[in-house]
């Protein structure tokens, strides 16, 4: 097992060194961090500033904010413009879930397809590494990178709120809901994306086509985000736990498929 850990570490470190030298893999996740942060601040801070009226004064989202208190107890201590801002920052936080999705997709497809394109898989498989070690190594670096990037995005989000929003809003946003969203749900979404990326990458010829297929994962997250923003529902803590349980099942299924795809003979004879 010690040898197995050393082999996983060797390959994961190699992947990390390659990824940081690969702008094609790194830039999309960085762009996504920016893309997921801007809309919230534009709607909650920028637009009212340009219009010269607070969100409370314009009446936008006021009713929805008041109704959301039942689902988001963190909002209970707030009122007026601070309540609306906190409500919006909670709703837009879901957009940050796209960071692990995009990061995992970009990094994992490059990590796997990069080996295929370099024709490096056969030499790797000719070493004592087992296929499960190879699967772990190939997902470990993208997982760590994507998770770190997600938490950096969350950190920037909270820092931005602290700097730009009404006093006390950041405390209402940085509550249990955010912890569940990015401490449990985010890593599970990321893991599912990684596994789908690896499975898709086994059949794809270039990172872009693999990313196009994997990016379908963005659709349900975007749909939920748009629906909640339009007032269809507010996702509270119980719903997040339910989502996490569902993702756990999805990840188990994907792991089962991934282990089958990552068979030495399958990689050598069927991966193209």
């Amino acid at each position, binding site marked *: 097992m010690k*040898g197995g850990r*050393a*082999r996983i*570490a*060797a*390959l994961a*470190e*190699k992947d990390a*060194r*390659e990824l940081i*030298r*690969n702008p094609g893999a790194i830039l999309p996740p960085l762009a996504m961090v920016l893309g997921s942060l801007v809309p919230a601040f534009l709607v909650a801070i920028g637009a009212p500033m340009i219009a010269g009226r607070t969100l409370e004064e314009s009446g936008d989202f006021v009713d929805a904010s008041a109704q959301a208190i039942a689902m988001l107890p963190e909002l209970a201590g707030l009122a007026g413009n601070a309540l609306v801002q906190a409500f919006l920052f909670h709703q837009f936080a879901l957009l940050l879930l796209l960071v692990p999705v995009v990061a995992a997709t970009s990094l994992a497809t490059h990590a796997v397809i990069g080996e295929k394109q*370099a*024709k*490096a*898989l*056969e*030499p*790797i*498989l*000719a*070493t*004592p*590494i*087992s296929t499960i070690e190879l699967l772990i190594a190939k997902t470990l670096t993208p997982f760590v990178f994507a998770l770190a990037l997600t938490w950096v995005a969350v950190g920037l989000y909270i820092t931005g709120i602290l700097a730009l929003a009404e006093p006390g809003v950041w405390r209402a946003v940085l509550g249990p809901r955010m912890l569940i969203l990015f401490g449990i749900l985010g890593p599970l979404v990321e893991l599912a994306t990684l596994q789908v990326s690896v499975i898709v990458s086994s059949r794809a010829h270039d990172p872009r086509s693999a990313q196009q297929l994997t990016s379908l994962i963005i659709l349900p997250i975007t749909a939920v985000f748009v629906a909640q923003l339009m007032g269809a529902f507010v996702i509270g803590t119980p719903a997040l736990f339910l989502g996490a349980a569902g993702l756990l099942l999805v990840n188990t299924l994907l792991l089962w498929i991934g282990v089958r795809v990552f068979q*030495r*003979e399958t990689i*050598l*004879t069927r991966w193209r």
Partner: protein
Amino acid sequence: MAADLLVADHLTRTFGDRVAVRDLSLSVATGEIVALLGPNGAGKTTTMRMLAGLILPTAGRVTIDRVDVSAANASAARHAVGLLTEAPGLWERLSVRLNLLTYARLHGVADPAGAVATVLDQVQLADRAEDLAGKLSKGLKQRVALARAILHRPPVVLLDEPTSGLDPASARHVRDLIRAMKDDGRAVLVSTHNLAEAEELADRIAVLKTELLAFDAPATLRSRGVGVSVTIEFEDGSKQAIEVPDLSRVADVVRDLVHAGKRIVRVVPDRRSLEDVYLSLVGADQ
């Protein structure tokens, strides 16, 4: 008699209904180079992969250093083998040293940095250690790949098309490295399409076309049972090429010609090339 380090015993490998390799038996001894010849699709790569412990045979067995390779010990078997794949398969964004260091760690080498320094000296690439692999010429990449195959000091080395696509100078350098492996006491199996190279390097040659068609020393192979060709030169300057089943029949042919009134000056046995033998074995259409 040197010990056989690598033994293939009645290996068969099928993929679905297709038989890639059938009933293949061969061996490579300590300090021996065996060349594996065969047309495209003959099963050479499948054979290499079975011998390297990458895929298991459908039937038969592989023995490396007297240990049977099975699913349970394939990992240890792969450590005992150095495989040069057809493409170098280097990580082009990383330096030569980092490429090799990663493989040293994957093989669990005790002193990865020391092993890399040693092997870089062996392939005369110490001065290119910090170069990005992607910046190297094809010949240098092949030398790095060779270094990767032997850096964990495996007793068995399998080389798939080691000089394919290389310029003559690079190809010669690679052949010198292969000879050095033999001198180090390794068992070396080289898959190649280059018959001259096989003849130059190999102690024995195996000809494969799904089945093993021949396995012998190059000289023995050249003279093997597809007849003997001689050229008879006559006093009037004319020549006649004659094929007979074996050398003992040449005397009969000469006697018949003399009885027929021909005046013979010389009888010259033709040296059959390995190419003639190879083509007669695998079929001229190949």
